């Protein structure tokens, strides 16, 4: 396993809510990434963002691991939830907060802290 693939796996498995997106929460580079981020924020999710743009290999490796072809990708408790459309639909039905509570516990909002991680050594922080 390459460093990149194990780094991606570590983020997916180690972070409560992992959002693989184009850009960063501070500078979002894609409308769908923004939709997913905002839905997660409204649900009070502790988002860990990973920018896939610094290296095309990130996206290739991520999609190989998840079996999901597009960006963004949202993982909760190590499990793929979906992309922007699904996260918004889950939010509308109330299932997004239910899923967060089920996977992270009822107090998941308390640890709300947005952070950004890089999965390549040369990626911008």
């Amino acid at each position, binding site marked *: 396993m390459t460093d990149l693939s194990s780094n991606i796996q570590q983020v997916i498995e180690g972070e409560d809510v992992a959002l693989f997106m184009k850009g960063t929460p501070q500078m979002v580079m*894609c*409308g*769908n990434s923004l939709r997913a981020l905002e839905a997660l924020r409204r649900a009070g999710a502790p988002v860990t963002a990973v920018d896939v743009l610094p290296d095309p290999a990130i996206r290739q490796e991520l999609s190989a691991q998840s*079996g*999901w*072809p*597009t960006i963004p990708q949202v993982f909760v408790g190590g499990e*793929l*939830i*979906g*992309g*922007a*459309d*699904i996260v918004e*639909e*889950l939010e509308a039905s109330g299932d997004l907060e239910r899923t967060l509570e089920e996977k992270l516990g009822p107090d998941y909002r308390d640890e709300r802290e947005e952070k950004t991680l890089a999965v390549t050594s040369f990626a911008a922080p």
Partner: protein
Amino acid sequence: MATDRLRTLLEQAFPDAGELEVQDRTGTGDHFQVTVASPRFAGLALIDQHRLVNDALAGPLADGTIHELRIRTKGTQ
């Protein structure tokens, strides 16, 4: 052109679709909204419904035809 290709792929994957729409959101042939209503989705989790659509469109997703894809699925009886 790309719109027709996507529609054909979805029609092949969901021959029983009651509703099937492919919309070119930006008029540039690379940002799409697809809507599919099919009995195949009934009882499936949203993510599995979307996986079926992604699978049907794997070709244009992989070759870069689709730059952005929005999916709306509906399970029908």
